[in-house]
């Protein structure tokens, strides 16, 4: 077994083997479209904000675009890892990354709405 020692794979022996069915596929696709949407939305907000806010909008926008692309690629890796029957570890890291990226984009848009 090359699975990570921790996490959701440590099912106790008294339970049936886990079969999430298509839930993993559904979730990976949900991550994929959210990652792509973050990328596009960050670029759109950044483009609008840069006229009013100036160069200060560029760095948070690039960070958010990077986070969106990261999420999209992570979801693709996740799907191929499921096909190899080696599920990756789910925890709060990716949700925290996405939340942080959207807080940045929201702040850019808030400043832009105030100063424009």
């Amino acid at each position, binding site marked *: 077994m090359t699975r990570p020692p921790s996490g959701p794979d440590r099912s106790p022996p008294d339970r049936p083997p886990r079969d999430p069915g298509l839930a993993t596929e559904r979730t990976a696709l949900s991550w994929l479209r959210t990652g792509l949407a973050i990328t596009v939305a960050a670029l759109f907000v950044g483009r609008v904000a840069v006229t009013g806010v100036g160069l200060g909008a560029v760095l948070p926008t690039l960070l958010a675009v990077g986070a969106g692309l990261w999420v999209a690629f992570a979801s693709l890796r996740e799907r191929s890892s499921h096909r190899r029957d080696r599920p990756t570890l789910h925890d709060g890291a990716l949700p925290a990354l996405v939340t942080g990226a*959207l807080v940045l984009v*929201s702040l850019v848009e808030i400043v832009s709405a105030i100063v424009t």
Partner: protein
Amino acid sequence: MTEASGSDPHRDDRRWPRSVYGEGDEPDPRFSLANERTFLAWIRTTLALLAGAAALDALDLPMPDSAQRLIALLLALVALMAALQAWRGWARTERAMRTGAPLPSAPFAAVVALAVAAVALGLVLTALLRSP
């Protein structure tokens, strides 16, 4: 690693944050995955609100500039709070499923609904005031 005692079943669990994974039992993975998709639905709600705010910011609509900026600001503020609610709801739900507690409610959904209704009302009113 807050509880690294001998027979602690959470000792080898490296998942983050510990406030979520540090106690309780593994829920059915389908439930954890559903919780993730709920998180992502909140995130896409945030994105929609941000897109609306940026559009109002960018377009030159036939309405007072101050009103347009106010609506854009309101949408962006609700977007910020929706992003934070996405995280908070995910963490609280995951913890509740691990400990067997009732799932937390999300009263912030009502704030989003009210804000969107207020924005729609504002846009309708400005359109009506302009027409002869």
